[in-house]
């Protein structure tokens, strides 16, 4: 009944001059290219992350401080007056308090602390970045496998227990002897990176393992397993994206931590020699003379504080932005 009425209505409209289709509509050519074109911008996870990231005030502050630090690290060493980074032989510049000539004062060797801090920051940051990247990459890979494959768990737990319980000081003592005998020409920087990364990754691996254990039996992972997704793909596509925020937070705390542990390494004779200039060496030096010349500790401490500040803010903003559920 109803459809018959509709059909009649339609035919009446079509035949009447007012509803002439040819006059109302323009026929277009059939173009596959145009019909396949997607007008909406394709969704890209990383673009979306960047859009959210760049809007956060903490990211803006962090990026600008990072820019200033990078700029200073690269440019300021070129403008260092001659001899300011070497021990003063004329003994006129020793232990000077901060003044216009020496912005952060001088050390007990007569090294200008302002220029030393920038030069030291460059060296320390590079070393810290290398050690952090090695630790995090190795730790994440081992940790994912450790948490995901239940068969590996008992072995790796015992390896962890074994490694983490040997006093590190004893290991460093022995390592120092090995280096002295086997690689006498190895540079102090390489030794430091080896010491920081030799067992540093196992802590990261445990951290990742604990979180993998927590999320590996969540519904979406069980579903993936049921569908027969290969283990490697589950780790890469399901677990790693979930962990990315945590890993970023961990990185932002590890980089300054690496610079700080340069100080403790020099206790065991693995820090850079005191003639080299790095934030760790300056801190260690300043610690000794803190009572008489406090600026010798405060200058490198402020430099380290700037680094911690930058990486903390960037890590906070980035790990918040990495969660795709908060993008809209």
């Amino acid at each position, binding site marked *: 009944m109803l459809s018959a009425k509709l059909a009649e209505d339609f035919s009446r409209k079509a035949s009447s001059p007012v509803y002439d289709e040819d006059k109302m509509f323009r026929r277009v050519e059939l173009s596959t290219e145009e019909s396949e074109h997607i007008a909406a911008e394709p969704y890209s996870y990383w673009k979306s992350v960047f859009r959210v990231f760049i809007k*956060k005030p*903490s990211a803006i502050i962090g990026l600008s401080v990072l820019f200033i630090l990078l700029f200073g690290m690269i440019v300021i060493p070129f403008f260092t007056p001659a001899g300011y980074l070497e021990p003063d032989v004329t003994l006129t510049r020793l232990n000077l308090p901060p003044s216009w000539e020496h912005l952060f004062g001088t050390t007990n060797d007569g090294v200008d602390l302002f220029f030393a801090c920038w030069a030291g920051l460059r060296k320390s940051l590079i070393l810290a970045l290398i050690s952090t990247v090695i630790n995090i990459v190795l730790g994440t890979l081992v940790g994912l496998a450790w948490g995901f494959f*239940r068969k590996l*768990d*008992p072995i790796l*737990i*015992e390896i*962890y*227990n*074994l490694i*983490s*319980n*040997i*006093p590190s*000081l*004893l*290991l460093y*003592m*022995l390592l120092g*002897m090995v280096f002295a005998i086997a690689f006498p020409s190895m540079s102090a920087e390489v030794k430091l990176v080896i010491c920081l990364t030799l067992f540093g990754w196992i802590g990261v691996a445990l951290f990742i393992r*604990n*979180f993998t*254990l*927590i999320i590996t*039996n*969540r519904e979406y992972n069980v579903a993936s397993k049921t569908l027969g997704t290969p283990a490697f793909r589950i780790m890469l596509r399901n677990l790693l994206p979930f962990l990315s*925020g*945590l890993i970023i*937070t961990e990185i932002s*705390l590890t980089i300054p931590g690496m610079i*700080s542990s340069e*100080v403790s390494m020099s206790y*065991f*004779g693995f820090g850079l020699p005191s003639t080299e200039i790095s934030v760790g060496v300056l*801190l260690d030096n300043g*610690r000794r003379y*803190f*009572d*008489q010349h406090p600026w010798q*500790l*405060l200058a490198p*401490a402020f430099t*380290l*504080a*700037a680094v*911690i*500040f930058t990486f*903390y*803010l960037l890590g*906070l903003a980035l*790990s*918040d932005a990495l*969660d795709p*559920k*908060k993008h809209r």
Partner: protein
Amino acid sequence: MEAVIETKPRKDNWFFKSLRAIRAFFTNPTTLYILKRIGSSLITIVLLAALVTALLRLLPDEKFYSNSLYMKILGKAGEKAANNYKWSQLFEAGIVDKNNNRVSIFESIGKFLYYIIPIPKQIPIRWSADYSEVLKYWNGLIYFGKSSKFDNAFVLDIFKERCGISFLISMITVVFTYLISVPMGIAMAKKPGGTADKIGNIFVVLNYAIPAIVFYLIMNKAFGLINIDGKSFFNFKYNKSNPVITLIPPLFCMIFLSIPGVVIWVRRFMTDELSSDYVKFARSKGLSEQTIFYKHVFRNAVVPLVRNIPATLIFAFVGSYYVETIWGIPGTGNMLITFLSVQNPDVQGIQSLTVIYGAMSILAFLLGDIVTVFFDPRIKLTD
């Protein structure tokens, strides 16, 4: 026709009930898993003891006696007395035996393993001047060695004597840290980017940006033990007769410095959970924000945090080196570092403390896993 299965009537008196309960307990996969873990942990402890003994034996002999003292004796009393000094030092370190023959690494390992395996034994601890006869024996089950530091006391006695104050300090620190930082992290996570989040972040950044060593040194200058030319205005030092007042500065430092480490992670876990589907579902069901926050989100976010509770409780017995040195607190924090002094390492001290701390950390690891499973039943430790 269905077959009728005849079942024996269950014997239901208390004896069979308890027998069944015991059988159920021991065939439970979790119990089996824990038993397996304990078994492999014991092997690990034996390996750890062997490894640390081997590593100690790799150190050169010069570490175990003072070369300057040797030269002094050589100059004053001749070669025999000097060699005697060297030999007695090496003998105490377990490198040579009574007849001046070198002990092999495997012999050292075997000896230490014999010490720590709990069987009744008799161990010589004091000799006559020329080490020819034993004056005193030690009797007992597990022998943890005798230190050459801390007035030559037994390592276990030193640890027992010192762990009380360290435990007290650590526990107060942990309780206050969590009391302050968990609510702080929750308040920050409630509205990322809000006022509480901003204030909290500023506090965490500023606190975190001070390198710990600088903070301790400044605190040390303000109310520390060492005061140079009278500039320190409190000169606090730990005093056994007045522990309440004298423990305030070190406790303040420790609590203050450990807050950001907890706040950062509480905030991170809470914000991660807040964007989950179950939160959206709870919200669409019309649950109040309070219920969602404390019953749903907090339950899930707290899982990674409770894992650390056993470790925190167990490692409360190990104090902090910096704090104990600065305020002169007689705790366990500086034991290992004293034993490991680069000039004169204490073999038995290092061996024993490694085994004690190793057993503690293995226990903490196992308990951490068990607690995690208890709080989140979805997690499975077994296949």
